[in-house]
């Protein structure tokens, strides 16, 4: 994937508001994720159906990398079992850390592979994944 394609994916998902909304439904578990060293701050709402992630929504304020990586991750995780989701996040973290990872598993998340070369943006790219991983 060249840098233009990566940028297009990041921008497309940044502007995708399908899953960007606050949820009052008590069937969703609400978690907050923020980066204290900058100003990213989002709420994430996850609905499980037994072992499967049935739905994820989020809302809040954050930079383009944080929002877009959240959208892209959510798109990938919905419908997955907890173990599958954990595996995706673990691979995503490996990619962000510049380690070997499974590209097939990450789908559009590979658009963020350059983050491994920008240490200061790692906290942006993992704003959602860190907290969702804790929950899993």
């Amino acid at each position, binding site marked *: 994937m060249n840098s233009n394609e990566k940028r297009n994916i*990041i921008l497309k998902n940044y502007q995708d508001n399908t899953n960007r909304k606050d949820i009052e439904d008590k069937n969703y578990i609400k978690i907050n994720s923020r980066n204290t060293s900058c*100003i990213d*701050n989002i709420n994430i709402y996850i609905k499980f159906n037994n072992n499967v992630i049935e739905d994820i929504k989020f809302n809040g304020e*954050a*930079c*383009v990398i944080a*929002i877009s990586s959240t959208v892209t991750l959510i798109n990938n995780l919905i419908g997955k079992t907890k173990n599958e989701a954990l595996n995706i996040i673990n691979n995503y973290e490996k990619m962000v850390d510049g380690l070997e990872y499974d590209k097939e598993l990450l789908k559009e998340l590979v658009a963020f592979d350059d983050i491994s070369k920008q240490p200061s943006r790692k906290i942006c790219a993992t704003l959602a994944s860190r907290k969702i991983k804790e929950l899993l």
Partner: protein
Amino acid sequence: MNREDFNMLKNNIVYFDNGATTLKPNCVKEAIDDYYDNYTANAHRGDYKTSLIVDDKYEETRDKVKKIINAKEKNEIVFSSGATQSINYIVFGYFKYKLKKDDEVLITVSEHASNILPWFILEKEIGIKVKYIDLNEDYQVTIDNVKKAINNKTKVISLAHITNVVGDVRPIQEISKIAHENNILLVVDAAQSIAHTRVDVQKMDIDFLVFSGHKMYGPTGIGVLYGKYDLLNEMVPLNYGGGMNALFTKDGYIELREVPTRFEAGTPNIEGVIGLSSAIDYINKLGINNIEHYEQNLRKYLIDRLKELDFVEVYNGNNNIGAIAFNIKNVFPQDTAIYLDKYNICVRAGNHCAKILSDAIKVNNTCRISLSFYNTKEEVDLLINVLKNNKNIYNEIL
């Protein structure tokens, strides 16, 4: 003006984050080098030549600080690590012992965290009440609102002279008059004003004043706590150790040194004091009135140019001094800051340590430009041109 005095400006940067810290003129670095190269010694300790030079320079700086804020006496100046430590000293060394349960302290939502959190902690510790003076539609403090906020339980008003996000100048002299008519003490945070406008503690009749050296072209880690002598004389030291005691005996008897030395326990930040001394000389050489005049003109130019851009929202265009808070509409401020950084334009994005201000301005985060006399219209023009190209923002930052 005087750009040649700042080596940092040779690095092809546009530095618009002077509210966070200012760049340092060469004379400040040279003064610190001179201390380390030619007269390194501790202060108030030795009987040898270099140590005496340190003593002289250290106390001479206290005198320069006294003059720059027009304090009545040199011993009303305490050196600290910065404005934050100074406010904490005032709150926990003085007011903790003077206030009682239900006494009220007035602040505003646009104060810096350092002028809010110590009061919150005192609220928890001894049961004082932190109350807020309402801001007007331009987020400014008005005399009417100060009067409205005062009641017979109000004992302290603690305000920034100029706030770090909104950039409004508070009418300190009038506030102090009202405060003192009501037996209220006035604490002023001058961190954002000391390098940009005249601060006169006698004329403004300020009880306690704080500021940091690094926001006035001096080094980091040095700051000032000013207090009227009678107040400082009743302040309790928070640090005990060398340099601050006159005598102590085996049975626990301690006799303290005089004010202000009793508040400067341990080896002080000597290089910081010497750097601050040079920074004060530098400001005096330029003239604070010249600095203020230049910066006001540049600020007006910047606001006028920003207002030409219909995709930019400016939140505090009506003030004539201090920081400018803005956003590119529909762009997260940190993305704007990263975009500007691609052109070596340094601005701050965030809530600027004023986390409860967002309730008032209805915007959580902004980009902030804070000017200095070394900024120029050409730099403003560059900023405007880069902002005009903002359609490219995501191409540039991704």
